[in-house]
């Protein structure tokens, strides 16, 4: 009996293979298919959350809401000028009122074009950094220049989207852990069934002086290898699905979708899953076999 990871031909013959023990590989293919999908979802939503973080942190909307148009125009100009002087402000632009009216038309109807209807003057502001102190300072400066101005962090209204993304990532992570647990359970059951099937052979090996570790190695190598092979098949299928979904999303061409793309690090993590599961299966098989053998003399 050899010590290596790859079983010698003689070792492989020891456990009779003819009775469909390879079903294990297919179960593992399904497990890994689901796991890789869950992990891809988790990594993608994590990516979106990160994109949102990067885009939203330090992005403000300033609205000047004075009802009289003359006041509004004057305050808006003052606020914009004040903002542009601040070193913490990287960029401050007024949103084109025509564009704003266009956006509001579905809600206001054609009346939106009525110059008498007050539409707030809006500005998009990017800060160089997103600390609370900076925010307070910007707020103070804007208020001083334009008493009717309101400063909103975009974060506060896109925040819920980010929470949903975070929750999805968490759920996906939980799913991956559950699948790992289920895989370990399947492996333990398979190892016990294998011990039953091969109990006569194992009794002979024991009487000839085999150690428990030698017997366990026969099982763990086979189960680990089945998991790896099945896992690779499952992963390939899952990656096919992920790529397909990616193509469909690309067609949407939205900003958030860019965040859904998997990065190199994400692909590496997905690629490691079958290996991680094979190692997990090997360990689970070893422990199950050793625990069962400890009960015989």
């Amino acid at each position, binding site marked *: *009996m*050899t010590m290596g990871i790859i079983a*010698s031909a*003689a*070792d492989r*013959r*020891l456990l*009779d293979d*003819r009775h469909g023990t390879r079903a294990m590989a297919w179960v593992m293919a399904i497990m890994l298919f689901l796991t890789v999908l869950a992990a891809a979802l988790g990594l993608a939503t994590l990516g979106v959350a990160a994109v949102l973080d990067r885009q939203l942190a330090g992005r403000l909307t300033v609205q000047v809401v004075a009802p009289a148009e003359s006041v509004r125009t004057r305050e808006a100009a003052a606020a914009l000028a004040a903002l542009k002087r601040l070193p913490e402000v990287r960029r401050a632009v007024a949103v084109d009122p025509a564009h704003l009216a266009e956006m509001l038309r579905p809600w206001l109807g054609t009346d939106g074009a009525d110059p008498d209807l007050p539409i707030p003057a809006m500005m998009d502001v990017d800060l160089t950094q997103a600390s609370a102190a900076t925010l307070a300072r910007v707020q103070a400066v804007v208020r001083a220049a334009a008493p009717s101005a309101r400063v909103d962090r975009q974060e506060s209204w896109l925040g819920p989207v980010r929470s949903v993304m975070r929750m999805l990532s968490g759920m996906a992570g939980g799913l991956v852990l559950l699948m790992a647990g289920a895989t370990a359970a399947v492996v333990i059951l398979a190892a016990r069934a294998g011990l039953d099937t091969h109990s*006569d*052979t194992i*009794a*002979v*090996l*024991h*009487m*000839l*002086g*085999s*150690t428990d570790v*030698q017997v366990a190695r026969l099982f763990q190598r086979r189960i680990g290898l089945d998991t790896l092979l099945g896992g690779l098949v499952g992963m390939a299928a899952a990656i096919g699905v992920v790529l397909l979904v990616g193509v469909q999303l690309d067609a949407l061409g939205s900003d958030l979708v860019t965040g859904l793309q998997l990065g190199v690090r994400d692909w590496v993590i997905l690629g490691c899953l079958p290996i991680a599961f094979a190692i997990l299966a090997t360990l689970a098989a070893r422990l199950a076999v050793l625990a069962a053998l*400890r009960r015989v*003399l």
Partner: protein
Amino acid sequence: MANIVQFENVGLRYDTGQETLCDLSFSLSRGAFYFLTGASGAGKTSLLRLLYLSQRPTRGSIRLFGEDAVTLPRARLPGFRRRIGVVFQDFRLVPHLSAFDNIALPLRVSGVPEREVADPVREMLAWVGLSDKTDARPPTLSGGEQQRVAIARAVIGRPEILVADEPTGNVDPDMAERLLHLFDSLNRLGTTVVVATHDFHTLKRIPHAHMMRLDKGRLVDPTGSLRFPPPDTVQ
């Protein structure tokens, strides 16, 4: 250490009540040849099972290779078992392995490199007259052929003790003679041999062998010679 095995007041009780073996006290000298006889059900196989460590006694002490075999930790059993060759009464061959692989098992279990396995196995196959059955699986062999594979497997590792349970039960007298000759050669090389048998013809073939007889789980030893290291010959 002249005694390779020493039993002191050993008793064995299966779950079914009465003691199958009781008050066994004897010792086996290193390098001697023993026959164990007794009626069917007398407890021969049970005694041998104690000897090859597939069963612990319910009471008494057993010393094997100078160490207490009763309290031996489980982790040390494999090391002891590799020093004992066993021919089981029911052979216990691995049915899906060829005769070659069955005989090679003890070598592979002890980690003998693969390139050093083939020669001794072929030699053993020749010894037991099965060179033409190298690749045959046990279910396709006759009872006698299976028995010879079992014997080859038991002796290939040059064990210190060879324990054989009815090893000539299924073979014709000529083959029985050859097998006993094999045991005898092994014995001359220093292996202690214990053979359980009903067959009185077998007994006569090894004139220097010692006799042990079991009757209903007790050693019958009218001369008292088995209680202590036996004299040169009994019969």
